[in-house]
């Protein structure tokens, strides 16, 4: 199950979801891949067939970011937020929201480098336990009810 290429998913507290993955590159490259609009649309895509026609990044504390995904059927999804802490090469904190009816999360990326490989950990902090559980639940319930659209959104909020 676990290997160098597997993603670890944990619930560190009752308001958080965390993902961790080892990458075979120094962390300054990982930081660049994660924050440079030339790179982000090449990998932060979610399901197969999706593209990212809009990727705007103003990489400074208080700066905004805005991503738009286009699904295979042409439908688009919009997500935006602001950067809070931009500390290359090891830490990036940003807010993230899908819109007024979705809870705003605070996403913290930490990059720890060891012998040329980098452990990337993304922690998503929800405003409350209820919001996190609702997000987890929404992904499950609504995913079944609405052709997986919401689940896909939910997975997108983990970006």
């Amino acid at each position: 199950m676990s290997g160098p290429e597997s993603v670890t998913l944990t619930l560190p507290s009752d308001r958080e979801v965390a993902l961790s993955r080892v990458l075979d590159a120094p962390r300054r490259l990982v930081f660049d891949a994660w924050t440079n609009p030339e790179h982000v649309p090449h990998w932060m895509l979610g399901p197969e067939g999706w593209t990212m026609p809009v990727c705007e990044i103003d990489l400074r504390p208080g700066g905004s970011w805005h991503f738009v995904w286009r699904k295979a059927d042409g439908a688009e999804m919009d997500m935006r937020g602001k950067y809070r802490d931009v500390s290359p090469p090891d830490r990036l904190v940003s807010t993230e929201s899908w819109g007024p009816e979705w809870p705003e999360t605070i996403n913290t990326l930490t990059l720890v480098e060891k012998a040329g490989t980098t452990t990337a950990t993304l922690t998503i902090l929800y405003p409350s336990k209820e919001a996190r559980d609702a997000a987890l639940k929404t992904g499950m319930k609504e995913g079944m009810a609405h052709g997986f659209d919401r689940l896909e959104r939910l997975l997108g909020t983990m970006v």
Partner: protein
Amino acid sequence: MVMQLKGYGHLAPGRLDAVFAALADPTRRAILTRLATGDASVTELAEPFEMTQPAISKHLKVLERAGLVSRGKDAQRRPRSLEPGPLAEANAWLERYRKAWEANFRRLDGLLERMKTHEKNRDHDKR
């Protein structure tokens, strides 16, 4: 990315909340890990945690409400057992969540390789 959600019909939303809440606590995770190796009484469970029996009982109540732990029939010992069902279902859900991100990270692997090659060539050209 695998998005099939078959098999979740019997996991009630309230139950999923309770399962995730129960799993959020490290002591409760340790109790589940212990019970995975075999049934144990409250006294046996309290030992390794340096906690009072009432404190352990409180954690066990949370686990029982989540359906993760059940009580045995032995009236004296009341051994607790691990109930694997809800845990497996919550895990299966998290597993899909995890898999979704694996696709992103696989693409990131490819991008990082290209970035490394690009850097190497650039450094080489400089010399």
